[in-house]
């Protein structure tokens, strides 16, 4: 696959964040400061805009440039975390001019690793990681099973959505939600929702 696919992927992510802007604002308004919908919409749009012209063909440099644009546009905690995921994917894919299915899976594994490294969250902490991690695991399983890219993406999106829904059983330990203690448990985590949206965008991008 050409690396221009990554531009399609970023476009789908940017679009899905814009479509869900109000939903994210409402969710974040319950557990955080309510700006998540704006941060994600503005941030992923900046990421897409930075590389949309197709001038950069190195997959790593493209993803890194997208992450950098996002980091500069939305320097909040969640903005920085999402940008760092793109940048980590960029570091790990540096030098690639074409993409295999394994590289696509790597993007999301790197994304998770980058976010976890910067934010320090683990699986079960009720964060973005709880949405992305099941998707990354699903992608690995699909690679081993030899699934088509379309099937890989569909399964990963379903896994992320399940992961997101499971956050209603978790206690928040990071950010403002953590100050609510036990009362945080039944709430949906907006970060995990963002992960689910990213994987939905991935599913659309390969159709």
């Amino acid at each position, binding site marked *: 696959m050409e690396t221009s696919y990554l531009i399609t992927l970023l476009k789908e992510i940017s679009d899905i964040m814009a479509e869900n802007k109000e939903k994210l604002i409402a969710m974040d308004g319950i557990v955080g400061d309510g700006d998540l919908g704006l941060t994600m919409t503005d941030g992923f749009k900046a990421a897409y805009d930075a590389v949309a012209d197709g001038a950069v063909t190195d997959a790593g440099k493209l993803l*890194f440039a997208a992450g950098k644009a996002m980091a500069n546009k939305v320097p909040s905690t969640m903005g*920085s975390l999402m940008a760092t995921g793109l940048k980590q994917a960029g570091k790990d894919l*540096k030098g690639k001019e074409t993409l295999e299915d394994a590289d696509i899976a790597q993007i999301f594994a790197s994304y998770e690793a980058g976010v976890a*490294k910067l934010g*320090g969250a683990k699986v079960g902490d009720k964060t973005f990681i709880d949405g992305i991690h099941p998707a990354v695991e699903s992608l690995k399983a699909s690679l081993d099973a030899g699934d088509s890219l379309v099937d890989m993406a569909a399964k990963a999106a379903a896994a992320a959505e399940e992961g997101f829904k499971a956050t209603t059983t978790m206690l928040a330990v990071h950010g403002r939600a953590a100050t609510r203690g036990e009362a945080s448990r039944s709430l949906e985590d907006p970060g995990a929702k963002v992960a689910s949206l990213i994987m939905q965008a991935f599913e659309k991008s390969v159709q």
Partner: protein
Amino acid sequence: MKKIINSPDNYIKEMLEGIYIAHEDDLTCVDGDLQVLVTKHKKEGKVGIVTGGGSGHLPLFLGYVGKGMIDGCAVGDVFQSPSVDQAIALTREADSGAGVLYIYGNYNGDIFTFRPAADEVEMEDDIETAEVLGADDVASAGPSAPGEKSTRRGVAGIFFVYKCAGAAADKMLSLDEVKRVAEKANNNVRTMGVALTPCTVPRVGKPSFEIEDDEMEIGMGIHGEPGIRRGKLEPADQIVDEMLEKIVADLPYENGDEVAVLVNGLGATPLDEQYIVTRRINQVLEEKGIKVYKYYVGEYATAIEMAGFSISLLKLDDELKECIDHPVDTPFFKQV
């Protein structure tokens, strides 16, 4: 607010201008940005050590930029992190081909500054980087499980991490080795502080918290973060005993151990009182059979004009002793 300033908005800028005037032979700024300082005595081929964090803690952080210690520093506004771009510019300047080690305190704002900067220089400049996060404040959280990220704050004990890593780098060790020494120092240092009065961030204009005239707070952080016990002010010996009990038990420091001790004034506690504290520390450690290899007493990491002090212990082995003995020449700290 009673401060010798011209205006709160110019506090950092004018402070830094004074620093460059007084230390013009030793310090310079990067790309005209006063908040990004590097040594004028860059040693080619040496691992670069850089740090940073909020202003308001002098001599921390910028005061340790110099020979035998660290190579550069990015400072933000009072108690605010520097920007990612400042950390990037700093790293590029501090690298001379052997890579760069970041040593900074375990605060989210600083993590969100230095990790993205590391990503950037690794991707775009192929500079190898590593990091060690100071997390020595035993009052700030419980110990972390092995392999887990510490949730403790970094406070004055980072001085020892700079000292040991700086010596290792000055001996031209590799990035991996300098990082190993820094981690060893970091893993063997513990600190606790006590505050008697709050501090006032100039642009805020009022004290960061309230405390009665006859009260103290044991375990308070260097930005006024809550401690572990607030109570009536006690005699110096009793305060020292309580702090040392927590520090010694934490590592733990044991009979037969050798340590370096840092008695650190938080900004408004006179040296007289710091030496009264030092006297008691020596009594207690002697009773416990812990031998003091070297004392450092004075202001090393302050919280603007907070009154109070902290005690840091660093457990030493032969390698760390050599690092402690290594000569240093920086604007705020010299050791021959």
